[in-house]
């Protein structure tokens, strides 16, 4: 294999060196349990406190609004089930979108089985939720709106602030799954009227298996993991000490020079997209042309199937994704691509390239060099392409 190019940063990132260095002592030296009274415990507690401060600062929250969890999925499950159950006296209606991550969608479906009612709002061709639709969907039974900050497949960034305003005006809680957004987009929970926000460290150069839920002061929510008194009695379980330290450092780093790294990333991404569309026919860009995550490129190649594309790229050392990493193993095409109006056929032919901090211009060149041949090879094997050419021929 000549070269290894990782372009799957939306699936997960490596842990940055500075993050790793802060984490290291907490495995083998400063390994105390933060709940312990003694010096080992206290130094652990201090580290957790610092991570909480850094996290709060990044989101413009206060420290007592940050709860560390085992990752984005746990945060989503907790936010939605916890808020639904704590507020069921008030109502049983939840509003979400049809392009949420499965951690939100399947949680909502689970709640439906328990008697809750869920409205799944449509999105437009770019994957945008219309705030007017949110407003119209609110009834006097609505207790929660859960709309993701940025989509993991097509990168579209939602009008979160407007949705937050509508939610607040109607006295309905607003949760946002910001797993793809945190560390990549400026976020201000106060300005955006966010009540609950999920994040996950391994999407911004922190470790896997640790996340957080922001819970605005005063929000009524049940705990989800019962047990010890950790996280101010709201999330039981011995704290993932090195993980939390890593999350704290990673979120701080991410927001230190966000603008600079984002503009670099977006420039590379735009060159990648332009290059692909120039070199290959019958390609479409999925997601919003401008309101999208700086590292996200999602394209559909007609007449071929995404997994075959991924495998071929992989043989050339290029790591990419077709839809969400979490949904591989499923046979259905991505629910997100269907929701933005793609046919099943075209949805199957989608490729997600997500760029990150280690990508270079040479990486982009390499993909642009390799991809056209791969697409051509697969199209030449495809009966759909033959048919297409045939049709053209006879027109």
């Amino acid at each position, binding site marked *: 294999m000549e070269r290894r190019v990782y372009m799957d940063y939306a699936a997960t990132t490596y842990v940055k060196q500075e993050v790793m260095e802060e984490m290291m002592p907490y495995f083998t030296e400063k390994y105390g349990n933060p709940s312990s009274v003694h010096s080992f415990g206290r130094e652990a507690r201090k580290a957790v406190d610092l991570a909480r401060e850094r996290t709060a600062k990044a989101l413009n929250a206060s420290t007592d609004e940050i709860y560390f969890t085992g990752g984005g999925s746990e945060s989503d499950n907790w936010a939605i089930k916890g808020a639904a159950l704590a507020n069921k006296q008030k109502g049983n209606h939840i509003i979400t979108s049809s392009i949420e991550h499965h951690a939100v969608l399947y949680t909502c479906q689970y709640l439906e089985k328990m008697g809750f009612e869920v409205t799944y709002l449509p999105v437009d061709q770019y994957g945008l939720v219309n705030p007017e639709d949110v407003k119209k969907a609110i009834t006097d039974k609505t207790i929660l709106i859960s709309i993701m900050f940025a989509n993991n497949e097509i990168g579209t960034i939602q009008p979160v602030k407007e949705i937050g305003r509508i939610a607040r005006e109607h006295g309905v809680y607003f949760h946002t799954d910001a797993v793809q957004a945190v560390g990549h987009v400026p976020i201000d929970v106060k300005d955006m009227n966010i009540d609950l926000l999920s994040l996950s460290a391994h999407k911004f150069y922190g470790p896997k298996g640790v996340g957080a839920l922001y819970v605005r002061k005063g929000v009524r929510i049940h705990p989800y993991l019962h047990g010890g008194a950790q996280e101010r009695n709201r999330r039981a379980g011995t704290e993932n000490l090195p993980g939390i330290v890593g999350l704290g450092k990673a979120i701080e780093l991410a927001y230190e020079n966000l603008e600079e790294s984002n503009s670099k990333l977006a420039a590379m991404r735009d060159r990648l997209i332009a290059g692909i569309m120039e070199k290959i026919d019958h390609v479409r860009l999925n997601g919003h042309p401008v309101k999208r995550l700086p590292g996200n490129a999602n394209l559909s190649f007609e*007449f*071929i*199937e*995404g*997994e*075959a594309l991924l*495998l*071929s790229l992989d*043989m050339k050392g290029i790591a990419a994704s077709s839809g969400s990493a979490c949904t591989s*193993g499923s*046979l259905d*095409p991505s629910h997100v691509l269907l929701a933005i109006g793609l*046919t*099943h*056929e075209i949805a*199957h032919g989608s490729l997600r390239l997500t760029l990150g901090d280690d990508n270079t211009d040479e990486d982009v060149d390499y993909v642009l060099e390799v991809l056209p041949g791969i697409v051509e090879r697969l199209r*030449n*094997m*495809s*009966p*759909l*392409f*033959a048919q297409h050419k045939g049709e053209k021929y006879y027109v």
Partner: protein
Amino acid sequence: MYSEKVMDHFMNPRNVGEIENPDGVGQVGNARCGDIMKIYLKIEDNRIVDIKFKTFGCGAAIATSSMATELVKGKTIEEALALTNKAVADALDGLPPIKMHCSVLAEEAIKAAIEDYRSKQLVKSK
């Protein structure tokens, strides 16, 4: 996830292509599900003397198409009809459980092409 054999047949598929004036053509699957296999047969003296395929689908779909065509090439029609999806999967050193349906498609595609050949023969003999 895939065996080396699968990867080999995916990267270097045997018998890709079309046959002009084929004696039989079979197509199964649909784009909705992400898999279409199309098989072309050339048959002489009840024997498959040439076979080609075109496939839209995942790595396993392409590899099973390739392997299935290899397995029946040169065989009599009766022998070809005895092909099972399991035989295709085994010849590829196995498939992940969620990809077994590809081997089923491959079996069905070959049967559909033979079916097509037979129905054409029937027309001719009338």
